[in-house]
């Protein structure tokens, strides 16, 4: 079930005070209208360890920024500090140029969507939505109009008299979204809002949220575990690990140009080959593997000959047909261990340079060469697809 959106009215209202963000995403250089700023923010819960270590992050107005990272990396903590439920141990958080460290949550005017929706169980959908308007002292007529508009926006007006318990997960999610938007906040925080939904519904809601973001011009800070979600929805993704941002970049950069081995490992599937830098010339590195073979790579954060490195290559960028390789590229021998049929692709596990967890993905096309276990082949890749990173 796909929903269209009737946003025209809502849009006008919000857009007066909110500029739309750029068409192709706000890149790092858009610094003119810094909206949310984390300035050297640190957070400790117990006074012993830092959960957030020196966070510097600037979010532009209208941007869709996703915080992605493994469990316990401090994403929720950052969001809670922004929302005002946790105080920063050190550093400053600014919203629209104003230091909000001491502003209580209810005065920040930030919309928030929680993972478990947090719809008030004792109120109907309509009461849930009108709550933020009531506490702002809005009159009844205006409230009703706003509630109707917000519910129409998520196609849920007919559910106005239901209680949250009478709604499905996806419907509750929509209501939570509508409630976070009903009071026209310019910043909306979402902490794993789709975590509890099944895959299909999740993908659909991703589309809806993205659509709302674009049409309302709101700034969204989104937290997720799901890298697919992060890559499809965001203007920029901040990859968190261990209380630090490992990389902050648009999705394509993140996938294709990971800056360190954590990001390379965390985003998508990656083959890793350890070795030593044999030659280093501008933009090119020759890496000698433990078994003595030579491979090509692009140096990322390696600086000197003889340095240890971890070369990462995406499985879909591995080639085994010599005619697909650029001239002069190195190829190395590999033994096919198994080939798994996955419908759209074939996934071959290979033994390369002594380890047998090297993965190659082939498109399942009509003329695709059939590989069988035990076969030996030669594989290679474009040098820019292999990235020589400093090992962690």
């Amino acid at each position, binding site marked *: 079930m796909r929903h269209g959106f009737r946003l025209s009215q809502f849009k006008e209202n919000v857009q007066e005070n909110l500029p739309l963000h750029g068409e192709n995403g706000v890149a790092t250089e858009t610094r003119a209208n810094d909206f949310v700023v984390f300035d050297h923010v640190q957070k400790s819960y117990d006074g012993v360890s830092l959960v957030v270590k020196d966070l510097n992050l600037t979010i532009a107005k209208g941007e869709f920024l996703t915080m992605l990272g493994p469990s316990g990396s401090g994403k929720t903590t950052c969001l809670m500090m922004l*929302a*005002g*439920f946790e105080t920063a141990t050190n550093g400053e958080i600014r919203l629209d140029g104003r230091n909000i460290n001491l502003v*209580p*949550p*209810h*005065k*920040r*005017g*930030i*919309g*928030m969507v*929680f993972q*478990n929706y*947090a*719809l*008030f*169980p*004792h109120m109907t959908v309509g009461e849930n939505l009108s*709550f*933020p308007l009531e*506490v*702002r002292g809005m009159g009844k007529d205006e409230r009703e109009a706003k509630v109707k508009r917000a519910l129409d926006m998520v196609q849920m007006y007919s559910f106005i008299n239901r209680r949250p318990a009478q709604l499905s997960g996806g419907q509750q999610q929509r209501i939570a979204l509508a*409630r*976070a938007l009903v*009071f026209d906040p310019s910043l909306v*925080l979402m902490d794993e809002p789709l975590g509890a939904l099944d895959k299909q519904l999740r993908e659909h809601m991703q589309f809806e949220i993205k659509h709302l973001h674009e049409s309302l011009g709101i700034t969204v800070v989104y937290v997720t575990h799901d890298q697919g979600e992060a890559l499809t929805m965001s203007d920029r993704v901040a990859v968190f690990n261990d209380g630090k941002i490992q990389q902050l970049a648009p999705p394509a950069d993140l996938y294709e140009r990971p800056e360190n081995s954590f990001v390379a490992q965390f985003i998508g599937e990656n083959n890793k080959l350890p070795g030593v830098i044999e030659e280093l010339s501008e933009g090119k590195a020759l890496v000698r593997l433990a078994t003595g073979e030579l491979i090509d790579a692009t140096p990322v954060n390696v600086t000197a000959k003889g340095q240890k490195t971890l070369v990462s290559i995406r499985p879909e960028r591995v080639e085994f047909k010599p005619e697909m390789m650029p001239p002069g590229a190195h190829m190395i021998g590999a033994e096919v261990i198994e080939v798994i049929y996955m419908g759209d692709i074939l996934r071959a596990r290979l033994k390369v340079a002594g380890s047998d967890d090297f993965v190659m993905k082939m498109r399942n096309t009509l003329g695709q060469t059939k590989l069988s276990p035990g076969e030996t082949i030669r594989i290679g890749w474009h040098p820019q697809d292999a990235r020589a990173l400093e090992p962690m």
Partner: protein
Amino acid sequence: MTDVPPLLTTADGRPLKAALASAQGRARRKAFYLVAPLLLFVVFSFILPIGQMLHRSIYHDGFSSTAPNLSAWFAANPSGTEPDEAAFAALAADLAEMKKNKTAGEAATRINYTVSATRSLFTATARKADKLQPPFKEALLAEDAKWGEPVIWQAMRAASNPYTTDFYLIATDRARGADGGIEQVPENERIYLWLFGKTFILSGLITFICLILAFPIAHLLATLPMAKSNLLMILVLLPFWTSLLVRTTSWIVLLQGQGVVNNILVSLGMIGEDGRITMIYNQTGTIIVMTHILLPFMVLPLYSVMRTIKPSYARAARSLGATSWTTFRRIYLPQTLPGIGAGALLVFILAVGYYITPALVGGADGQLISNLIQFHMSKSNWSLAAALSGMLLVGVLLLYWLYDRLVGIDKLKLG
């Protein structure tokens, strides 16, 4: 789709409904056998005694079985008939029988419940019943002029049927007048309704104090980290593990005139030596001690409800712009209502029927209706005790009904 759908059948042609019923029947029987012992226990230990108690409150054959002749006369003549010679003859015959069977006391007790100071009338007359000669009216009146009083005859008429509302009349401070009509007893003899009122008001007060004290404790328990909340929980439950008598006596030690609290107040100079506050053996004592004893019954349901209220509700409310007070009033408090209801109902019902604490620390003005019930039981006035208990039961059921209407029994949450 206007046709009636065809009757569904199983593969072997049996109707689906019948097949389903027989398939589920076995499981249901099994389940019944499992609960049967409990059912029997409940029937024998709960339903039967309560039924018997209620029966006792409307049944007393102390007079009807000892005075069969008079009872027959009452049955034959409608209420309002002047007692004639036949009636007196029947009375004389019954009195003679009573003397023989030594049952005059029993009959006298029954009449004495409704008309006081009539015991000797029966016992004394019965002693001489053999010597009575017709005309019996004159003979009996000569024996004791009281036999001519309409009140006595009304009482005997009411008692001639073992099924009677007399005890409920007494329990509501009313009595049968000389003309058989029901009227309130004189002001200075009214005790029961007043005591019922006092019991309900005191119980309500105790429930309210418990709620005020328990709410923050339960909230603390529900929000503190596990290790600390467990310790606190033990403190809350500690009273449960101490004998009721020990707890009550400790309060006596604390609150009595020469007790700890008074001594501290005196030594601090806040009250003079002769200004010691009376906090025990009165209503205040009953309230203090019962609040303490019933507090856990309020804390536990509140805690169990509060534990399930996720902190994200409060956070959501705050992020939507509500102040912390609004969040408490509009979001937190309404969600604790099932716990408040359950705790209040539990504490109130327990308080209304509480007997030992008021008996020990209540003194004269801290007694509750249950103490009076106990008093009548000790005097073997089972029927009146039963009638008072029956009224208490109805009051509690009424409350339960009210709760169901207002909050909904399905929302009751005790743990």
